[in-house]
Every structure is written in structure tokens, then in C-alpha cells.
């Protein structure tokens, strides 16, 4: 059971890092109080993990044959990579970290199923693009509808308040549903836990990270994203939630950070403004490459140590 600890660590760092994708804009624009945001996020992440979390766990196990020790190493390597990326202020994808780690482990045992890997990588690529399209479309359509229906100032104001909270909760739910597989999927794959138990453990550890360590990332404007108006913030989070929810149905864990960035870029296209700096995009690209590689290498190291 000590092997679960690395998973908990991974869940914790994921929660700390990704909760900003859910209520980050809501908090920094002052619409939602920080404490309310993290409590809501924690609740809905657990809900999502419990209700739909197991859907994505299958593919983690199918990727390669994982031994319990491997599971420990993978989760640990992924967690360390995530923490490092957070420290470097590079948006990190837990999905890429854990998958990279699993591949790393499988290199030694030679049992990697690369067809599954291609499917996973394809989904990673589609995530930001899909979020971009979703962000753009929702912004236009919803904007049009709102201009026709919710017109008075007071109503708009109330709509935005309620909307930001609602979309945030939905996004947290999707995050839990989609990403809990990253956290404890390896234990299911190695037969140590049932999907349901893994969902509980993973969900709780993510919630833990959200509640204890997410302030720093949430308050950092240095995420390189242009401060959004309430409507755009609402749309971005909604787009991200939908994308993650969709990929949960497909059964592949994807990155919420990349989804939110894609959505924000898509929204920027509506007004023809560049919402994400080139520098940030470069950092994201760097993270794309570094994360799985680093995690994979580290896992190699750990598994070698353990055997």
C-alpha cells in the first residue's frame, strides 16, 4: 500500500496545478472568492471522479503491462515532473507525464502497445484544437443569444455571476472525471486497485491538492493569459469542461491546461486579438516535449533502482 503514496502525491500536485484552469479567471476577476472556488472545485472533482472517473482508467492499463512496483515508480516520476514544471511555471499535463512514465517503464519490459499510444497522442493534439473551436463557437453563439435575451444590466451581471460558478463546477467535474485516471490509473492497470477504489483515492488526493496548494498558481497572472472579461471567462471554462467531458467518454485522459489555453486562444480569435503571448505558447510547446520525456526517463531510473 505504500506504493499508493506516490499516486497521492501525483493527485495532490495535479489538484494544485490544475484548479487554476477551473476557477482561475473567476477568482482573479474577483467574481468568485478564492475559498469558495477551491471548495466548489474540490467537491465537484470528487463527484466527477466517482461518477465517471473509471472510464479513462482502462486505457492506462492497456498501454502496457504494469507491475505494482512500476506503478509506484510511474506515479512518483510523474508527480516529480509535474512539480518541477509547476516550479518552472510551465503549464504541465499530468496525462502526458503519466503516459510518458508508463512508456518509460514499458521500455524495460518491452510490452508497450503502441497502437494505444497513437490514439492517446492523437487525443492530446486534438484537445487544444478542439477547445479552440469550441471556445470560438460558443463565444459567438452564446454572445448572440445573450444580446437578444439577457439584455438589462442587472440581469447580465447576475447571469455572469451564476454562469461563472456553474461553468466552474462543471469544469471541475470534468477535470475529476477525466484526470483521475492519470493519478491512480496505473494502480488499476497493475491490478492493485479496482477502478472504483482508484477513483475515490485519486479524487480525494486531487481535492487535497486543490484545497491546500492551489493559491500560488491561481493568483499568478504570469500564466501568460490575457485577463478576460466575465463573459469570455465563462465561455473558456465551459469550452474546457466540454472538451474534457467529451474525451472522458472516449476514454482518454487529456490536459486541462492545454484545453483552457486552446479555448482562450479561440475566444481571442473572435475579437481578433492575441490572447496568449507567443512566449507562453513556446513554453507550452516546451512542456509538451519535456514532460513525457522527463517522466519516462525518471521512471526508467526508478524501476531500475527497484529491481
Amino acid at each position, binding site marked *: 500500500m505504500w506504493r499508493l503514496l506516490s499516486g497521492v502525491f501525483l493527485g495532490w500536485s495535479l489538484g494544485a496545478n490544475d484548479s487554476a484552469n477551473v476557477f482561475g479567471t473567476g477568482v482573479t*476577476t474577483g467574481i468568485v472568492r478564492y475559498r469558495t472556488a477551491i471548495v466548489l472545485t474540490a467537491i465537484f472533482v470528487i463527484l466527477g471522479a466517482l461518477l465517471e472517473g473509471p472510464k479513462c482508467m482502462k486505457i492506462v492499463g492497456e498501454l502496457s503491462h504494469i507491475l505494482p512496483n512500476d506503478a509506484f515508480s510511474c506515479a512518483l516520476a510523474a508527480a516529480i515532473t509535474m512539480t518541477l514544471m509547476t516550479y518552472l511555471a510551465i503549464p504541465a499535463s499530468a496525462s502526458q507525464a503519466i503516459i510518458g512514465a508508463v512508456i518509460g517503464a514499458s521500455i524495460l519490459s518491452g510490452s508497450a502497445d503502441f497502437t494505444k499510444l497513437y490514439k492517446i497522442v492523437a487525443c492530446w493534439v486534438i484537445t487544444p484544437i478542439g477547445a479552440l473551436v469550441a471556445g470560438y463557437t460558443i463565444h459567438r453563439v452564446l454572445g448572440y443569444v445573450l444580446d437578444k435575451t439577457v439584455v*438589462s*444590466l442587472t440581469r447580465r*451581471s447576475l447571469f455572469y455571476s451564476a454562469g461563472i460558478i456553474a461553468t466552474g463546477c462543471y469544469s471541475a467535474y470534468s477535470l475529476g472525471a477525466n484526470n483521475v485516471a492519470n493519478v491512480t490509473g496505473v494502480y488499476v492497470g497493475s491490478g492493485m486497485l479496482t477502478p472504483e477504489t482508484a477513483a475515490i483515492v485519486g479524487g480525494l488526493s486531487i481535492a487535497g491538492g486543490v484545497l491546500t496548494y492551489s493559491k500560488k498558481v491561481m493568483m499568478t497572472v504570469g500564466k501568460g493569459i490575457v485577463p478576460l472579461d466575465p463573459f469570455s471567462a465563462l465561455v473558456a471554462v465551459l469550452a474546457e469542461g466540454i472538451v474534457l467531458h467529451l474525451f472522458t467518454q472516449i476514454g482518454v485522459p487529456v490536459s486541462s491546461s492545454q484545453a483552457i489555453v486552446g479555448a482562450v486562444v479561440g475566444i481571442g480569435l473572435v475579437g481578433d486579438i492575441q490572447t496568449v503571448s507567443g512566449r507562453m505558447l513556446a513554453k507550452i510547446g516546451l512542456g509538451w516535449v519535456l514532460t513525457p520525456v522527463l517522466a519516462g526517463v525518471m521512471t526508467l531510473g526508478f524501476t531500475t533502482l527497484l529491481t
Partner: protein
Amino acid sequence: MHEGIMFLEKILSHGKKERQVTEDIREHIKLLCTACEVFVTALEKQDRNLMMDVIELEREGDAVRRKVISHIYEGAFLPYLRPDLCKFVELVDEVFGLLKDTVSYYLEAGLPAKLKDDSIRVALLNQRMCEMLLITFEAMLRGEDLREKILAIRIYEKKIDDIKFNLMSDAYQVPIENFWKGKVLSDLLSSLTSISDMIEDASDHLQIIHLGTR
């Protein structure tokens, strides 16, 4: 969980706080219109008592202003809207201030007969501008396009600008007893003609608020 309860309150109150704020601001602008109206009559009749009434109305307006600001920061509207709303209220307050200054200068040194007609015309146009400001505010609340209302305000402002030119050139020909009397007259004309600029600023700010929510 306190925040959670507060938030639920906000949703369930169906915008009660917001309604309070809009009522307050409406009251504020209406007071300003009344003050302008009283000022016109006071000028026409050269009634010092009516002039004092204007000062009283300014004091009332100040009280309303403080009420609005505190209501806004008790949690009405979204945080990003609040500074703009407050700025608008401050601008209306500055119009009040200019009106009060004009009255003070008048009470101190009166107004030469030659300048009376044009001054009354400016004062009347100021009143019309305030009425239009109220109309613009209501339209903004309803989420309407403000373009034609802002155009109307600009038309009034231009008219005042034209009169101002004549007013000033007539003023140059008024014989003055000493520097201080001249200064008071100059300050009176200056504040009287600045009122319209301030109202225009306020109306521009309504446009800013309107655009901020689209």
C-alpha cells in the same frame, strides 16, 4: 461556507442590491436635474433664496452619492463593474460641485445684465443635458445602444460651446471695478460653462459601462 451563503443570497435576491443601486443613482441624477432647473429660475428672477436652494440640493446630492457608493460595495453588480459605476457617480457629483461653485460666485458678485440672457440660455441647456443624462442612464440599464442619446448630449454641448464664445467676448467688454471682482466673474463663467463638459464626460462613462458588458 460564509461566502457560499452570501453567494446563494445574491442569486436568490434576484438583484435586489442591484435594484437599490440603480434607484440610488436615478435619484442622484434627478436631484441634479432639479438643481439645474432651480438654478435657471433663480437666474431669471435673480432670486438669492432660490440660489441657496441650489446649494441645499447639492448637499442632498452629496448624501445620495455616499449612499450609492456604500451600496455598490456591499456587493451589487460584478466587481469589475463597480469602479466604473462609482466613477460615474463621482462625475455627477462633480457637476453638482460646479453648479454649487457657480451659485457661490453669483451670490458673491452677481451677474452683469449684459451677460444675463446668454447665461440663462447656458443654464437651461445644462438642465436639458442633465435630463438627457438621465434618459441615457435608463437606456444603459436596459442594455440599449446609447449612440443616439450620446449624440444628443454632444449636440447640446456644441450649442453651449457656441454661446460660450459670445459670452466670453461680451464679458471682456464688461467694466470691472478691481481684479478680485473680475476674478469672481471669470470663475463664475468658467464653472457655468464647464458643467456641460462634465456632463458629457459622465455620458461617455455610461457608454464605457455599456460596452463592458457586451
